[in-house]
């Protein structure tokens, strides 16, 4: 009786499996041959197709239509339900076999197998979703990376606004002698924008270039904005730069360029106020060069420090920078 039932089950299962698995399993002719025998029939049933998702022998035939129904439902859900069905079949059939034959050693599993296993974990839909997710993640992070790099690039090149908590402590009171011999203090420069450059007259190439740049920028700014900026040249070599020396030197560049010099300790005080480094180098007899920081300081009409410009600015960028600061501080 049991074997007959098994045979019936096998035949029915076989028919169903054939319809499902025919396109997929190339070995199916052999399998169908195999399944003809009852012993391997059960094998075939066990591993290749399922007739029920629940346990119970009687319910086998009843569950058949149900599994067909499942198949129908599964089809709408996933693309290739055939494999999934096949797989679920392999999953569920052994369980039902066990249930029938043994006790409930795998009760937990059968409990879970009671639920409707639509398909296996892998299907065409899941593959598509995986590709979409993976591609989406890659594209998203790629964009994030590009944006981050752009940000870094722009951050190094753009000028950040200064901290809101005050300004740099650059500048301060000083008392020096100008190129005409008059004593000038920082108070004399109030009321107008000032551009201060520290250098010395015996400079081989840098100071002349910087001063030339400075006065050209000043003229350009005068053209563009009608603002007058006072260019100032402070010598860091007071021992050699006398008033006459400075006078002749600055007159060559611009009539409005003011040259300042003084006693060594006065110069030292100014240099400290403006954080300017200067040091005598290459000293041989009385001929030496002075190593110094190459900076132009822009001071506002209240003689407060606003911005500095280094050697990397050329005439046009210097002009732009100054105009920007002037308009910003209006």
């Amino acid at each position, binding site marked *: 009786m049991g074997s007959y039932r098994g045979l019936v089950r096998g035949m029915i299962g076989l028919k169903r499996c054939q319809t499902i698995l025919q396109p997929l399993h190339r070995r199916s002719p052999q399998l169908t041959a195999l399944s003809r025998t009852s012993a391997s029939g059960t094998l075939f049933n066990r591993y290749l197709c399922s007739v029920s998702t629940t346990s119970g022998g009687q319910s086998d035939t009843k569950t058949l239509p149900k599994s067909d129904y499942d198949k129908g439902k599964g089809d709408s859900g996933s693309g290739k339900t055939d494999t999934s069905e096949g797989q679920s079949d392999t999953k569920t059939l052994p369980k039902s076999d066990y249930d029938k034959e043994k006790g409930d050693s795998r009760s937990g599993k059968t409990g879970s197998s009671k639920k409707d296993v639509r398909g296996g974990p892998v299907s065409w839909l899941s593959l598509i979703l995986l590709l979409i997710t993976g591609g989406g993640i890659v594209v998203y992070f790629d964009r994030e990376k590009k944006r981050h790099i752009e940000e870094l690039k722009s951050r190094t090149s753009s000028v950040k606004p200064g901290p809101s908590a005050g300004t740099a402590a650059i500048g301060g009171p000083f008392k020096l002698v100008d190129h005409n011999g008059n004593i000038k203090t920082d108070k004399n420069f109030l009321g107008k924008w000032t551009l201060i450059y520290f250098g010395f007259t015996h400079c*081989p190439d840098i100071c002349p270039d910087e001063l030339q740049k400075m006065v050209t920028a000043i003229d350009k700014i005068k053209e563009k904005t009608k603002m007058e900026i006072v260019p100032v040249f402070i010598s860091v070599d007071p021992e050699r730069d006398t008033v006459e020396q400075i006078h002749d030197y600055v007159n060559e560049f611009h009539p409005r360029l003011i040259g300042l010099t003084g006693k060594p300790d006065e110069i030292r005080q100014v240099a400290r106020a403006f954080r300017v480094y200067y040091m005598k180098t*290459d000293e041989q007899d009385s001929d030496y060069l002075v190593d110094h920081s190459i900076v132009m300081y822009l001071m506002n009409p209240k003689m407060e420090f606003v911005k500095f410009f280094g050697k990397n600015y050329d005439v046009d960028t210097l002009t732009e920078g100054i105009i920007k600061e002037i308009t910003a501080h209006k």
Partner: protein
Amino acid sequence: MGSNQGGVMADVLSKGRDNCYKARDAFYACVEKEADKQPTEIATAGLLFPSQCKQSRALYVSSCRASWVRHFDRQFCAKKRVQRLLDSDDSRRGPMTLPQPSTFKT
């Protein structure tokens, strides 16, 4: 202390500067031109130059202050050194690639 010369040192004013620059450029052009000749003469700051440029060197030294001559020589040597570093040494250099800026290689 006060200036020892008393007057204005004219060689740092623009005319003096221009003369110096001209002589300097002439001298360095000569050195570049005769780069294949054996440098036998000694300039300052470690610079050597071939004897063909002795005349321009004399003019250069006379037009410029000594400290300026040393300064320009030093500058020239540094420039030469950097150039040498950039031109040669390809054999010892490995692949120098920066990290890929984007996931998709364009």
